[in-house]
């Protein structure tokens, strides 16, 4: 068990900077997910922690020791790969024990560890099979088993679920969480899937263009995104961004969207945005669940307006609606019984208590 620390870690491939100075503290037992679009440097970061890539600058520490120049085998880590990377010519048991056998562990010790891991992952009856005879989900379990038997300081997962179909992915997600609850090994997990990140992580690290955009618990990221990138990356359907301007009328602060539509801000929000520029182009950030059908008795801070729907998508427990506003396509979630229909007008309500205000130019959240 160990903590992992990254200090100003930089990775350059020739002239291209893949990772541009990352600072990250991962506590013992913590489950941290690195998430971001492809090419954001998350995998490179993980591979640097593993020692599969040398680092161009900065320091990586595992359990307090700087491991910059330590070869992977001496870092006491285990890694699960996207394509499982099981040795095709070895049985499941041999796959799991390969590392231990190389280190010349006693046979009895190896056997007990394999049994332990196999039981934990529910693959006891598979230990004599070859990888070719296993399904995708079973291979994933074996790959995890191979990591567990090593009993390393750190688990590293590189997009382990991307090769599985949607249903299996959900199942394995839970499996991984269960395993972590049992072994409590410090885990760094890389994914491009924000749902995976949100569901698995103690803390999520959102990366973009080789930099960390924000570090926080899933809830923090969802409710208090620090940048437009985080706001748009986390949550599905994504947050709506509506071009707007702040203006004062009648002594109250309003967000003006069109000539006809302007919403007064609730007191808490008004106080927060008091100092913001009145001339800059701004973006009103609203999650789809905060754009709903108007109710007869709205709560304070909830304002309503009329919109003509372009498309509706009934999801069963809710209906997603899409309409255009100031050139932006807006998505909202309404009650299936609200009478939303393609091409029909609907009176909608926006919950400004949960609004975000962003600077359109810089993307910063105000």
């Amino acid at each position, binding site marked *: 068990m160990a903590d992992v620390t990254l200090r100003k870690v930089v990775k350059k491939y020739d002239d291209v900077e893949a990772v541009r100075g990352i600072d990250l503290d991962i506590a013992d037992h913590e489950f941290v997910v690195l998430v971001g679009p492809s090419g954001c440097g998350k995998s490179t970061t993980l591979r640097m922690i*593993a*020692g*599969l890539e040398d680092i161009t600058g900065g320091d990586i520490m595992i359990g307090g020791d700087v491991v910059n120049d330590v*070869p*992977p*085998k001496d870092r006491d*880590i*285990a*890694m699960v*790969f*996207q*394509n*499982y*990377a099981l*040795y*095709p*010519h070895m049985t499941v048991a041999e796959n799991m024990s*390969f*590392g231990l056998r*190389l*280190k010349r562990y006693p046979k009895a010790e190896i056997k007990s560890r394999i049994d332990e891991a196999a039981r934990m992952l529910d693959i006891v009856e598979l230990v004599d099979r070859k990888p070719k005879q296993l399904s995708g989900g079973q291979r994933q379990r074996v790959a995890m088993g*191979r990591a567990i038997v*090593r009993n390393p300081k750190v688990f590293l997962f590189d997009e382990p679920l991307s090769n599985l179909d949607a249903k299996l992915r959900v199942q394995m997600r839970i499996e991984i969480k269960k395993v972590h609850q049992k072994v409590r090994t410090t885990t760094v997990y890389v994914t491009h899937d924000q749902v995976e990140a949100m569901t698995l992580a103690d803390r999520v690290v959102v990366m973009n263009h080789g930099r960390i955009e924000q570090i926080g618990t899933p809830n923090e990221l969802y409710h208090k995104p620090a940048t437009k990138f985080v706001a748009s990356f986390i949550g599905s359907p994504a947050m709506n961004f509506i071009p707007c301007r702040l203006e004062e009328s009648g002594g109250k602060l309003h967000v003006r969207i069109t000539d006809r539509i302007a919403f007064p801000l609730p007191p808490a929000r008004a106080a927060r945005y008091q100092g913001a520029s009145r001339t800059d182009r701004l973006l009103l950030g609203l999650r789809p669940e905060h754009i709903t059908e108007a109710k007869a008795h709205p709560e304070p801070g909830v304002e309503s307006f009329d919109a003509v729907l372009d498309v509706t998508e009934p999801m069963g427990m809710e209906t997603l609606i899409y309409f255009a506003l100031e050139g932006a396509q807006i998505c909202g979630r309404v009650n299936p019984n609200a009478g939303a229909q393609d091409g029909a007008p609907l009176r909608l309500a926006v919950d400004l208590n949960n609004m975000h205000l962003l600077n359109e130019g810089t993307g910063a959240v105000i």
Partner: protein
Amino acid sequence: MSTVAIDKAAPTRTVKYGSMSRDRTWALRWSYFFLTLFAIFSLLPPIYMLITSLKSSAEISAATNPWWVFHPTLDNYIGLLTSNQFLRFFWNSALVSIFVVTITMLISVPAAFALARMRFWGSATLATGVFLTYLIPDSLLFIPLFKVFALFGDWTGIQLINRWYVLLLIYPTLTVPFCTWIMIGYFASIPKELDEAAIIDGASWFQTLTRIFIPVALPGLIAATIFAFTVSWAQFLYPLVFTTSTDQLVLPVGIITTLIKGDVFNWGQIMTGALLGAAPPLIIYAFLMDYYIAGLTAGATKG
């Protein structure tokens, strides 16, 4: 090229016999008809070898129907297999082939691993160079090589010409480039994550090669071994140039230079010798056809 490029008669298309149209039936009949013709053409010489090998000299010179054996006899086989000279050829061939296969594998497998996985300065050029070397035919090099070895003998006093073991130095120029090339292909098709997993598991480069790469690329290794063996066994020009004493000859040259005495052709024995000389590659082919074919087609893909 996939890791295991061996398809055991992969089902290419399902032919529904029940709903097969008349056109299809006829196309199939014509296919079988022409395939039979081509198969006869292909198998004619080896079959004729067999027929002749079972005849006595008397029957051969009697000019009876050449396609039939009227008085089958094993005399030719007995004659050759009890002749020390012929056994010597066979032994020389076997010795040369086995050593060449070993040398080839010892050189080409580590080289292919290095070229496929451990990028270093000039590795891409070297890989291309290996391929080009494979395209250089024996008939371009036999004269300078002969002179080089003659000079080598003059300078050092170590006489290599007319010694069977000179072939151990020469044959690898034919086998190593091709085997390296196809092993590069097989190794390159192994996913990179597999060696990364091995590195994290604590394997050294050598252990990665011996415990992961060689077992995973075993089909390729077998294909390369078969190739190296077939080439060494069949090579004719180099032994013809480099060896002359009858105790140093390998089988193909031995049969041609000793069984043909001037204008006298003892066809029964020649055909028997040819058939026995063709037997080892044919037997290997019969048992390992898929590997043989995999190796054959692998040469045309980039490593």
